[in-house]
């Protein structure tokens, strides 16, 4: 089961290192980690996808809270969210195959962003499933290389995913009672 956490952190040098070091130290395996700017230049936003069946997302969350530079962490796994990943995929394509590939691309609403005599680069945005479906279809043509940004997530509706009291939410409160 995948868990998606959104963390808001201070935009200061070394913060990514602190988080990476924490994950290494506590043996938390992550599936993807995205860091980027936000509407506030002092705050960066991370989307962390954990892929570990025996890993408690609360453990990860509570350890993140211990870092002084981490402002807020939210587990959005079971909340209505939009998640997107962006992939660049370079496919082998001579002029005979090019048309077939651009057709596939348009079905998936992927953009062609580079065309060379023997290759083509597609840009696709979407959920991980959508990107993987396109990859499967492109594989027979020969994928030369690909890269993804890692998932980014945002809650639907007006909620901004920010707890003013951060720390005080305890989701495992009544376990077993």
């Amino acid at each position, binding site marked *: 089961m995948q868990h998606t956490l959104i963390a808001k952190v201070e935009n200061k040098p070394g913060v990514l290192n602190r988080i990476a070091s924490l994950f290494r130290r506590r043996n938390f395996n992550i599936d993807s980690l995205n860091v980027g700017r936000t509407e506030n230049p002092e705050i960066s936003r991370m989307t962390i996808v954990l892929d570990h069946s025996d890993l408690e997302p609360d453990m990860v969350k509570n350890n993140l809270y211990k870092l002084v530079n981490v402002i807020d962490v939210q587990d959005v796994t079971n909340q209505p969210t939009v998640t997107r990943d962006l992939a660049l995929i370079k496919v082998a394509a001579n002029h005979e195959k090019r048309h077939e590939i651009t057709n596939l691309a348009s079905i998936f609403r992927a953009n062609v962003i580079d065309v060379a005599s023997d290759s083509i680069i597609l840009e696709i945005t979407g959920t991980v499933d959508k990107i993987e479906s396109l990859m499967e279809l492109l594989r027979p043509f020969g994928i030369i290389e690909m890269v993804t940004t890692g998932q980014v997530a945002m809650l639907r509706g007006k909620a901004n995913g920010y707890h003013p009291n951060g720390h*005080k939410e305890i989701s495992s*409160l009544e*376990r077993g009672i």
Partner: protein
Amino acid sequence: MYLTGAEVVMESLVREGVEVIFGYPGGANMPIYDAMMNYPIKHVLTRHEQGAAFAADGYARASGKVGVAMATSGPGATNLVTGITTAMMDSSPVVYITGQVASSLIGGDAFQETDVTGITLPITKHNYLVTSAAQLAETIREAFYIARSGRPGPVLIDICKDTQFEKVWFEYSEEEVVLPGYKPPLHATKQSLDAAVKLIQNAKRPVILAGHGVLMSGAMGELAEFAEKTQTPVALTLLGLGAFPAGHPYHLGMMGMHGTAHANFAIQNADLILAFGMRFDDRVTGTLHTYAARARKIHVDIDSSEFNKNVKVDLTLLGDLQTVLADLNPIVPKLQHPEWLEQIQAWKQESAQRDILYWEQNGKLHAAHVIHDFWKQSLGEKIVTTGVGQHQMWTAQYYVQEKPYRLITSGGAGSMGFGTPSALGAWFANPDKEVWTIEGDGSFQMSLNELATLKQENANVKILLINNGFLGMVRQWQEFFFDKRYAATPITGPDFVKLAQAYDVPSIAVNQRDQINGALEMAQRTYGPVLIEFQVEPEDCVYPMVPSGAALDEMLLRPIKVNA
């Protein structure tokens, strides 16, 4: 006023109420040392930076204030590392200030350059690299706040040498530090308090596990009130000793690997565990799947990352322990558990039979007897620090703690060499008292260079050296689990009496039980450092002992030897 960065450091330390710094000068912190001469802060030159780190930790634990240690860049800073880990594992508030090479040289492998913030990242609560004097005052203010608030811990500030020379306008804010990502919790939620009351009400065999958190939040009064109102016995962790008076009828003593048998039996047979400011270290649980298997568990802590880390619990209360107990005490009902207390009394009787007091006098000097006699002679009232090993466990067992904040020992990290330098620090926190360190011959030989510091400062620190000629705790494990193959555990030492004499420290060696009191009295009559070497039985063992991989109640108990 305009100040140099170095003066900003000293001025800020004065504003934070710092009285003493333990440290060692070097190339990259010379400007700070130069500025120090103009400020009313005492500097103690230890003989190794590790000693400075341990001393600052000892000072912090004995005073309840933030300790300060200083070192230069490179090897100076890396020598602090064991001390920083020790403070981190035991949640001790210490600020370390290290010099760093000039900011223009960073990353260039300059002389004595080390990535100190990188090295100490996982062993500090937070750390800083300061490359501009304009950031210094605010950074120091934050560092002290972070070190002492919430779950206390070590904070390191690495300051570039050019920053120490740079002139800036100095202002020191008196307001409380506000950090966007740091809000130590205080009150537990009403919902969790109510849920706790329900569990407490329904329990028949409750046990409180009291840890260092009780002492750190000053919740001793609230703990006693809770225990008495709900008739709940209290077991203590090593670092929790002193949090609940040993003479109290509900006192179970220390739990865990070398805890009392009755504490461990009580935990394993409990139907409700109330964990107050402790973290279920493997040294207190035994194997996890057999641990307190029939008990519901309530965990109260200020650090949410401790919840469900080692032991899965039924209810968590996040908050400051004193506040949480003060909220809980009025809403828990008065309860009675006569049958449970009776059962515990029976276990206590059995433990007492195996106590060292029942050993026959065989003409040999046993370490446990030395510590017991010292406890009796000093009325249990001394501030005592320890090294790590058998002597540490015997101190925990036989230097019984009636009052808080008198036992200072490296628990989580288990750092040998902690005893003597931490006693030096504890003495600076209590200069009008006598501080004792109970050391082993192995532990002491890791820090005996600090004899010179004790002498230079004429610190009123007494070294009670338990010399058994072995790295005793490892030897004990070898005796039990490695077929008595004593690999690398026999250890020689110098003639400790002559060694102390070389440092001009009065000293005496003792090898008979009837000489113990005389030696102790000599040490107490002599102001300043004194060393007493006790030449004890080489192959004694600490009992009870929970072997690793065993359940908490599967203890090796001391064989009963009753006088005929």
